[in-house]
C-alpha cells in the first residue's frame, strides 16, 4: 500500500463481502485490442451486465491467429441442459477456478481475453444506498476471462478474490 492513492475514492467506502457487488460491468472500448490480428469494429458499449453479449478475443487453437467475437456473459456448465443456469455462474474466483468442476476445463483449454476500458463496483456505506464506482487502469489494459461454454459461446469473468485496490479503500 503506498501513499499514492489520490485517485481513489476514500473516506471509508466499503467494498467487502455482501456489501460489494460481485458482478462486473464492463465498458468496452471502440478501439481494437492490441492482441487482435483481425480488427472488426467493436460497438462502443458502456454498461455490459452478466448474461448480456460481450466481446472476447480468442486464440485459434490450430493457427497462430486471434480473433474478436461476441459471446454471452455466463457459464453454461457441461451438465446443464440449457442456458437457464448461466446467470448464476457469471464470475469465477481466481483461487478456485482451476479446481472447481464447473470451471476446471475452461481454465485449462478455453481461455480468452475480454477487452474493456473499465469496470464498475458498488460500495455500501453504513445506512446509505449503494454507491457505484467506475474503476480504470491508468494506462489502458485488457482483462482476461474464461471461455467456459460447452457450446463454445458462453463466458465467465475470472475475478481476484480480494483486490489490493479495494483494501486500499478500507485503510483510509
Amino acid at each position, binding site marked *: 500500500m503506498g501513499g499514492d492513492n489520490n*485517485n*481513489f475514492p476514500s473516506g471509508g467506502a466499503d467494498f467487502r463481502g455482501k456489501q460489494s457487488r460481485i458482478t*462486473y460491468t464492463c465498458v468496452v472500448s471502440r478501439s481494437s485490442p492490441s492482441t487482435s490480428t483481425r480488427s472488426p469494429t467493436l460497438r462502443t458499449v458502456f454498461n455490459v*451486465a452478466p448474461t448480456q453479449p460481450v466481446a472476447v478475443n480468442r486464440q485459434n487453437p490450430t493457427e497462430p491467429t486471434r480473433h474478436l467475437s461476441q459471446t454471452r456473459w455466463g457459464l453454461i456448465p457441461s451438465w446443464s441442459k440449457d442456458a437457464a443456469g448461466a446467470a448464476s455462474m457469471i464470475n469465477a474466483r481466481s483461487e478456485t477456478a482451476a479446481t472447481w468442476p464447473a470451471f476446471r476445463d475452461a481454465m485449462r483449454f478455453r481461455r480468452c*481475453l475480454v477487452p474493456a476500458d473499465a469496470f464498475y463496483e458498488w460500495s455500501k456505506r453504513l445506512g*446509505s444506498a449503494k*454507491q457505484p464506482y467506475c474503476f480504470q487502469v*491508468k494506462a489502458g489494459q485488457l482483462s482476461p476471462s474464461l471461455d467456459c461454454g460447452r457450446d463454445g459461446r458462453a463466458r465467465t469473468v475470472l475475478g*481476484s478474490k480480494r483486490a489490493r485496490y479495494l483494501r*486500499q479503500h478500507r485503510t483510509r
Partner: protein
Amino acid sequence: MPVILDPADYDVWLDPRMKEAASVSPLLRPFDANSMRGYPVSNHVNNVQNDDAESSLPGVPSHPQQQLFS
C-alpha cells in the same frame, strides 16, 4: 475485481499449449493499485438499459454529505 493481465502475459494466457492450470495460474494476481484509478458515478449505471456515456462519467455521490472524498 476482474483479473487484469499485464500485456506481456497475453501470449502465455492465450497459448493453447498451456493445458495445465498451474501454467497460467501465476498470472492471476491482483493488479497494482497504483496503476488504477476509481471515481464515483451516478446511479444511472444501476439500470443496465442505460448503455450510454453517462454511465461512466464522474457523478455526484449518492450521499455527498458523508464526504466520500476526505
